[in-house]
């Protein structure tokens, strides 16, 4: 596969959320604000790309018996790097994201891509796959948070879009809205994208 194909597969065709149904917890949790979604997405892109690259780099020497421990260690290290970077350079956003940065470690997309791709493919391919998977994940987060923030707060990225006449839809701020919006997104994409392709 060419790097372009790897990227397109990771981002669209085998999208982590709508195709593999991975990373759902964070997709539900942080999507009531677009800024939180974007920062979470950037953190996941960085961690996926760097962890994928590192895991691929040492794959020839990694014993099978400890490979998952090594993968968790590498993923955790990169997540802590993101956490320290945000605390030192973007403290306001670090505070806003609260516990979610630390929870990137538990995002199943990371272990999923490490095990399914990075541990069996070349370094640059793994880097591209990580970036693609991260972008695919971020796209979904932003799509859901766009609807939730717009209807729930009347704003986009914190900027007021709706006028004073707008009555905020409280349900959009709360967790249940993420469930049905995500389900609708998966349903629409599976109906129109994959069925048309088939």
């Amino acid at each position, binding site marked *: 596969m060419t790097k372009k194909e790897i990227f397109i597969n990771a981002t669209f065709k085998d999208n982590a959320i709508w195709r593999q149904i991975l990373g759902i917890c964070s997709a539900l949790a942080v999507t009531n604000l677009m800024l939180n979604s974007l920062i979470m997405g950037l953190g996941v892109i960085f961690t996926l790309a760097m962890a994928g690259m590192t895991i691929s780099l040492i794959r020839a020497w990694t014993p099978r018996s400890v490979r998952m421990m090594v993968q968790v260690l590498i993923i955790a290290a990169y997540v*802590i790097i993101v956490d320290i970077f945000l605390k*030192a350079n973007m403290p306001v956003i670090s505070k806003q994201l609260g516990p979610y940065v630390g929870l990137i470690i538990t995002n199943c997309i990371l272990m999923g891509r490490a095990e399914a791709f990075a541990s069996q493919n070349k370094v640059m391919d793994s880097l591209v796959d990580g970036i693609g998977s991260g972008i695919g994940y971020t796209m979904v987060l932003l799509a859901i948070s766009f609807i939730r923030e717009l209807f729930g707060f009347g704003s986009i990225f914190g900027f007021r879009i709706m006028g004073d006449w707008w009555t905020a839809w409280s349900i959009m701020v709360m967790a249940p809205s993420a469930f049905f919006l995500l389900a609708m997104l998966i349903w629409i994409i599976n109906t129109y994208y994959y069925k048309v392709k088939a």
Partner: protein
Amino acid sequence: MKDSFWFPIVFMLINVVLFTGILAVMFRYSEEKIETYETSSYQQKILSTLSAKIGEVTQQSPEQIMAAYPGSFEKYVQKLEPKDFEREVYKAVVADTVVAYCFEIKGNGLWGSMRALVSTSTDFKTILDFAIVNQQETPGLGARIEEKWFLDQFQNRLFVVNPESKDDVTQSYEFIAETQTPATDRQLRRVTGATITSDSVIKMLRAEFNYIYDYVRSNEL
């Protein structure tokens, strides 16, 4: 070699040492920056809760006082260390006169503990301003207690209404929906989707005011 007994152990150890080392170096490099930000952010929050009162006396706007940080903090704010008082407390002094106090208070939210700053009048009955220092509530839901509209509800609010009471010196409050307008001064707007967190804030304020008032009744700050 990969299948030997020792290789996985040695390999794992090398990885642990390598990555822990990278993180330790990175943390050391950023530590000072993080600490400086936290100290400055904390001091600015203290100054911010006291700025309206300081401004009232010095004929300056709160914005002017905040813009003059850190000079204004050094000029007007003093830390107090009262005996047997287990809270951080600061006083705002203008021309040798105490104009307000600021207390660091603690309580429990939905997911963990929270810390806040509350400034009071010199008789400790009225909340002048309120700010959250640290909380671990759900981002986008409970964490919205840090939003201006929520915090501003407490500004200039007479909080201690039963100063003689040994049980509870504070006013009782009821929460209404975020989108509603309070009909009486005993109503506060709750953050949508964060009932427990909103309740926790008022619970923290009431418990801490009882503690503070209990102390100042028989001691001087």
